[in-house]
């Protein structure tokens, strides 16, 4: 199959008097095509004579416009038709860069002259059209120019645009086929000097006097005047030629007589010179090609920029008059012209600087006015101030006037929680201030710290931890280099960086950064300025956040307690401001969260902290300040979560609803910053609704939340994925509790998503992941093996977390173990027993703290154990397990159903009977009888009396046995027992009476 080939049209316009040159050009392109066609480019030459015979069927106008290259060869005559087509080509080139136009005038022999018409045209080319024309004595000069054009064009995708066979767009780069050529087009040829001498120039090399393209000779340079004028090359070649006989003679002598030291020494000297000359010739050849290629490029594409001197010099070179070209390029004259241009530029720049200074002053005035307006009360003043700052910041950015207006506007936007806009402003300010920081004034240093610090916080709020990290690193390195003695600033910078690293999950460097920040700050802060207290508290809070993420809850509690005490101390200082109260409240809420985690999900201490703090938060959030509203919303959210855990559904719902309403507003203000907590609030409200069996409301709310957070989670899973997962998990739970079917797919999807997120935030996601795996295994239609695999994974993850001290995973671990026990009960009872037992041990502790949450799983676990023991006839084990369970029920006093106790007592009684502890069994059934009577449980009551009859009989107490059977018959009548049971009881009664009498 034929390779696709790009056909490049070359338009050749000549006068009839240049017929021979025209034929030579046709022949030359034919030869060139032999090489380029194999590499996918074919040059189609369209020949046109402006004053001769042409193909009458051809549309030459269209061909000029379509061509990639137009070559015009002139001798003495021109003509209106030539000028028209030349103009057409030039217009096309100027409007879309093609065709490139090459114009050559053949040198005039003595006695010949240009026609007046052509003379006028040539002058117009130079002076009006700024188009370069060249002169040639032999057609080989033109060929060389075209060869260089072709070689270069193969490297320029955007250069000649050939039409493709079958009308398809070119899919290859000619440039890549050329050895030794950089891939980027338009590279100045001077850049090629970094390549080793002797390598080719765009695939071209000179060998002898021939130019080779890709190693194949294409044309001879022997009649190219420019080549003849490249004197160094010829001088060195002449020297080399002159050396050759001597070299050969010496070589022969040393071969004949290897001991001829004089000959050897002379040969060495001459060899070195020969080698040197060879290299120098290679380099000179290369330089020649580079110069000619550069000339070809500049005269075609950048002709408008060539000075008259350059034009003349190029023409002289083409005539082989290199010395004259050097003379034309008069260094002194060039220097003077350059100085003039430089002075012009300086004058322009001075005037631009003056205008910029005026602009800067006006921007400064606008900022000043905005600040003054802000000092006045009222909405209108605030609005005007903001509009002014915006205007000033826009102007400042547009003209790169500095950073102050943008910094000022960013501050205002941050206060209003419009963080996305603030980030843009801060980045603008940063781009301006950054170049000023080296060796800067204290004011600039301080502004830089403020901009970068604010940018870091804003980015963290927007979930863009990567930019935050870069900001943090930039601030730290600036301070280390420029202000190493600014301790407090460095501590703040390190703390910021630590927070960013924490959010990125890079805990080890985060810890290093935070530790260094804390080491910089004094141990005892009581004698220090309040700002030191504040910074240290913030650093400790950041450390607590890191430790929470690492799962070191005790350490986190310790750090948070210290932070809280510093916040309290700061708030009590004389110079404390209102913001210290806000910071204290934030710290208190964070303390509650840490306690909740440190207590393994037990809400008691946390709830106390939240409840003590919520009043303060409410008081602080009375205005419309988004930061304070966010404080209240967050505290309410945490409190409601704790209340859900404590089974305080009503009060949880109230707090969660209030939080949800606030977050809804904040989300409208800055979605990225608040979507997470907004969705979190939705989950808590839904959980409380589900607790009150309001499943449909919960489901619809959760669907809304999931839809809301989905686009954010797609974009930044590491930041927002967790919130979507929370929604999906909550939805699954609601549907599962409601008894929906077909949850398997949803459970699989959520578990898969959780597994993906484990890669980002293992400690934050592991709880959900384990719960989802358990949920998946629990799905009705989950295949058995998939369920066991999911449970085993859940168990592994949860165990790892518990072993690392993250006690919140104890519950999920116990649940997974219990389910695994159930799965293994039939096939591997020993394994099942061990799983049930471990689960029970874990659950006993948990159930004591949160009976409502864990007593059910515990009961199910104990049931499993009892069933296994019964299967093996291990009645003493049944007795032990059930007795312990009854003790726990008694100890905790809540969280269990009455029938669980009945069942446990029955098993105890049954075990005692089996173990022949008849008196104890009798006592147990008497207890049970009493319980059943109170609860009206007739079935069990009947069974109790039957057992009592049996037990009395076994002990020989036939009279008591007869009484028991009598009561049993009464109960049987009450519960409507079947005839068989009644007959059996009657028979037992008769037997007891007979024994009593006998």
């Amino acid at each position, binding site marked *: 199959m*034929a*390779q696709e*080939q790009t*056909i490049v049209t070359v338009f050749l316009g000549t006068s009839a008097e240049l017929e*021979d040159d*025209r*034929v*030579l*050009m*046709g*022949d*030359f*392109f*034919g*030869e060139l*095509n*032999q090489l380029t*066609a*194999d590499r996918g480019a*074919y040059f*189609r*030459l369209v020949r046109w004579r402006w004053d001769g*015979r042409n*193909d*009458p*069927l*051809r549309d030459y106008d269209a061909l000029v416009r379509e061509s990639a290259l137009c070559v015009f060869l002139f001798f003495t005559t021109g003509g209106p038709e030539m000028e028209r087509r030349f103009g057409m080509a030039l217009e096309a080139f100027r409007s879309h860069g093609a065709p490139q136009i090459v114009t050559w005038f053949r040198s005039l022999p003595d006695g010949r002259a240009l026609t007046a018409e052509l003379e006028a045209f040539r002058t117009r080319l130079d002076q009006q059209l700024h188009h370069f024309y060249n002169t040639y004595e032999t057609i080989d000069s033109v060929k060389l120019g075209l060869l260089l054009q072709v070689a270069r064009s193969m490297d320029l995708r955007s250069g000649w645009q050939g039409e493709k*066979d079958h009308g398809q767009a070119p899919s290859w780069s000619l440039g890549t086929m050329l050895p030794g050529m950089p891939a980027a087009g338009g590279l100045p040829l001077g850049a090629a000097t970094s390549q080793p001498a002797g390598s080719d120039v765009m695939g071209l090399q000179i*060998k002898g006097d*021939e130019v080779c393209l890709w190693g*194949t*000779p294409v044309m*001879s340079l022997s009649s190219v005047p420019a080549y003849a004028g490249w004197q160094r090359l010829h001088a060195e070649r002449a020297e080399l030629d002159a050396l050759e006989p001597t070299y050969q003679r010496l070589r022969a002598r040393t071969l004949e007589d290897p001991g001829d030291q004089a000959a050897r020494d002379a040969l060495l000297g001459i060899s070195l010179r020969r080698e040197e000359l060879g290299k120098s010739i290679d380099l000179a050849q290369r330089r020649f090609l580079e110069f000619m290629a550069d000339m070809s490029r500049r005269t075609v594409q950048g002709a408008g920029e060539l000075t008259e001197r350059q034009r003349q010099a190029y023409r002289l070179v083409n005539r082989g008059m290199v010395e004259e070209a050097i003379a034309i390029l008069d260094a002194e004259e060039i220097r003077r012209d350059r100085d003039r241009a430089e002075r012009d530029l300086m004058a322009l720049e001075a005037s631009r600087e003056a205008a910029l200074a005026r602009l800067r002053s006006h921007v400064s005035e606008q900022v000043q006015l905005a600040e003054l307006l802000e000092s006045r009360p009222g909405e209108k003043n605030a609005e005007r101030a903001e509009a002014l700052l915006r205007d000033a910041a826009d102007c400042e950015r547009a003209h790169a006037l500095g950073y102050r207006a943008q910094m000022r506007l960013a501050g205002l936007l941050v206060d209003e929680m419009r963080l996305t806009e603030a980030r843009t402003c801060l980045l603008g300010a940063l781009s301006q201030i950054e170049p000023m920081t080296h060796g800067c004034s204290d004011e600039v240093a301080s502004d830089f710290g403020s901009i970068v610090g604010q940018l870091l916080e804003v980015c963290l709020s927007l979930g863009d931890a990567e930019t935050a990290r870069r900001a943090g690193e930039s601030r730290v390195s600036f301070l280390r280099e420029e202000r190493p003695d600014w301790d407090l600033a460095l501590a703040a910078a390190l703390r910021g960086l630590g927070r960013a690293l924490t959010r990125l999950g890079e805990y080890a460097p985060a810890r290093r950064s935070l530790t260094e920040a804390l080491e910089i700050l004094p141990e005892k802060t009581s004698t220090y300025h309040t700002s030191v207290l504040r910074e240290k508290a913030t650093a400790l809070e950041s450390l607590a956040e890191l430790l929470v993420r690492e799962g070191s809850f005790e350490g986190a509690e310790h750090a948070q307690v210290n932070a809280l005490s510093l916040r309290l101390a700061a708030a009590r200082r004389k110079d404390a401001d209102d913001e210290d109260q806000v910071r204290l409240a934030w710290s208190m809420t964070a303390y509650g969260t840490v306690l909740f985690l440190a207590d393994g999900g037990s809400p008691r201490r946390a709830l106390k902290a939240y409840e003590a703090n919520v009043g303060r938060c409410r008081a602080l959030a009375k205005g419309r300040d988004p930061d304070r509203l966010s404080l209240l919303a967050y505290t309410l959210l945490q409190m409601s979560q704790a209340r859900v855990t404590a089974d305080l559904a009503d009060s949880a719902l109230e707090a969660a609803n209030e939080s949800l309403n606030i977050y809804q507003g904040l989300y409208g203000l800055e979605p990225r910053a608040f979507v997470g907590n907004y969705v979190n609030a939705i989950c808590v409200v839904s959980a409380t609704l589900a607790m009150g069996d309001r499943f449909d409301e919960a489901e619809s709310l959760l669907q809304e939340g999931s839809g809301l957070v989905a686009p954010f989670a797609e974009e930044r899973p590491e930041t927002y994925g967790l919130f979507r997962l929370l929604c999906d998990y909550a939805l699954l739970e609601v549907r599962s509790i409601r008894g929906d079917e077909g949850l398997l797919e949803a459970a699989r999807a959520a578990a898969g998503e959780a597994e993906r997120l484990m890669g980002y935030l293992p400690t934050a996601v592991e709880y959900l992941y384990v719960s989802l795996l358990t949920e998946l295994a629990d799905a009705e239609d989950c295949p058995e093996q998939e369920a066991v695999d999911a449970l085993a994974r859940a168990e592994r993850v949860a165990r790892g977390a518990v072993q690392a001290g993250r006690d919140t995973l104890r519950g999920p671990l116990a649940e997974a173990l219990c389910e695994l026990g159930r799965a293994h009960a039939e096939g591997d009872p020993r394994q099942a027993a061990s799983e049930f037992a471990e689960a029970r041990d874990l659950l006993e502790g948990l159930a004591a703290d949160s009976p409502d949450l864990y007593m059910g799983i515990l009961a199910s676990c104990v049931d499993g154990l009892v069933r296994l023991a019964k299967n093996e006839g291990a009645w003493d084990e049944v007795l032990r397990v059930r007795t312990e369970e009854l003790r726990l029920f008694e100890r905790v006093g809540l969280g269990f159903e009455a029938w669980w106790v009945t069942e446990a007592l029955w098993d105890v009684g049954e075990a005692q009977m089996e173990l022949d502890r008849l008196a104890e069994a009798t006592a147990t059934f008497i207890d049970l009888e009493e319980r059943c009577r109170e609860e009206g449980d007739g079935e069990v009551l009947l069974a109790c009396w039957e057992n009592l009859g049996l037990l009395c009989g076994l002990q020989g107490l036939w009279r008591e046995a007869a009484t028991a059977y009598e009561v049993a018959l009464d109960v049987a009548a009450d519960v409507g027992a079947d005839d068989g049971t009644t007959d059996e009881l009657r028979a037992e009664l008769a037997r007891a009476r007979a024994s009593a009498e006998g």
Partner: protein
Amino acid sequence: MPHVTSIFLGSSEELAADRRALGDFMGGVNDAYAPRGRRFSLVEWERESIAVARQEGGKQAEYNELVRACDLCLFLFRTRCGEYTMQEVEAALAERARTGARPEVVTWMRRPRPGEKISPELRDLRARIDAGELDLPYRTYDDLRVVELDLLARLRPYGADLEPRRVGDFVYLGDEPVIDLG
């Protein structure tokens, strides 16, 4: 890759202008066939000599190899017949005898201008042909366009499937004017 037919062009230096004109003509033919994925490559003594001259010692052997690799050999003579050209003719004929068909050998003699003397070597060649010693029929030409028209017809078996057509003074291959008969 386009399908390539190689045409060896052997002639003495005195016919350099004809060689260039044939090169130009073949350029037009190739322009017509380029979109059809077909190419006719002119292998010329001058062009290849540059490369081959580097191979010391093997110079003529290399030429002969070139001749043998071609599909068609076109020899032009005027007044002279150099030693190398003769070797090329012999290589072509030997190869044709070996294969029984390829390369096809075509010979043209330009009619000498009045007063031009034919060299003894060329006279000898003609004599050998006339005596049937060499199977090298030739025709004479005054105008190269005769050779070009003949070549158009000879290229057909090599996939030159465009029917040459004459419109006015021009002979076209497809839309490409290849010969101006005016």
